[in-house]
């Protein structure tokens, strides 16, 4: 039952948050500063998420095979590789480094 409560609360909360962004009045968004900020916020969020999912295990910072995988993805991006290839490079290199490390 507890699990269902958690699922319900999360579902409602996450949906309301998504809808809020879409319902903010258009006039507010016409302001140049707000536009600029709305364009930069995804940059900040994606950068933080990338770093956390690569260099952290739960709440503690770590440096493991995922770092090599992300570096491979970065190289693939610099070479203008297609999206799926970028992700595949990260997965393969991470698995490879892990296999070598034991």
């Amino acid at each position, binding site marked *: 039952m507890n*699990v269902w409560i958690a699922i319900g*609360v999360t579902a409602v909360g996450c949906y309301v948050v998504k809808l809020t*962004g879409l319902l903010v009045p258009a006039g507010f968004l016409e302001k140049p500063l707000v536009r600029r900020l*709305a364009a930069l916020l995804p*940059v900040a969020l994606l950068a*933080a998420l990338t770093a956390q*999912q690569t260099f952290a295990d739960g709440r503690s910072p770590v440096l493991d095979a995922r770092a090599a995988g992300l570096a491979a*993805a970065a190289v693939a991006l610099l070479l203008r590789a297609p999206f799926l290839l970028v992700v595949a490079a*990260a997965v393969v290199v991470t*698995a490879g480094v892990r296999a070598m490390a034991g």
Partner: protein
Amino acid sequence: MTSAGSGLTLLQTCALSLLVFTGASQFALVGALAAGGSPFTAAAGAFFLGVRNAFYGLRLSQLLALPRAVRPLAAQWVIDETTAVALAQPTRRSVRIGFTVTGLTLYVLWNLTTLLGAVGARAIGDTGAWGLDAAGPAVFLALLAPMLKTTTERAVAGAAVVLGLGLLPVLPAGVPVLVAALAAPAVLWAEGRRRGAGPVALAADDVPYEQGEDR
């Protein structure tokens, strides 16, 4: 997959995927429940991770220009991936197509793989051994890369990385990401001061969609 391994039933796993549909929040919820957290603490962490979707919605609503009646339907698809695809499109028409196609495809695939994953979790075992845990950050990096056009974006990204990692051990799950979002206003403010003209003056040069209309 993860959820099947931490005591959620098949039905609960699929309901979570269908109703929440924000990967990071789902994993956070499952992780917190597996660690023995109360349903409300678990939900709070998942909620904080979902807050960033509001910022995406803010940006998307000006690009999509949806009729009010459609917005509640579109809202469920406001996530990292759909935002990134929509932001990369040159015209309003392709923004709408990109958002819809990405949303629909991901919604179907995400929930199908959740079902398959939940059913077959034990057959595969430890996903980490396959390097699949590196796929998430690689996807984010691929989405982020095209956005890093000017020094401003790079400064924001750099500051966000430092904040997001540095605060991880000291703040509850999901909160460091939100604090990292403050890198955006902070960099804008610093830049405005340096140019001595206030941040508003920056808006003219490099905001895409400055004309805002279909092209």
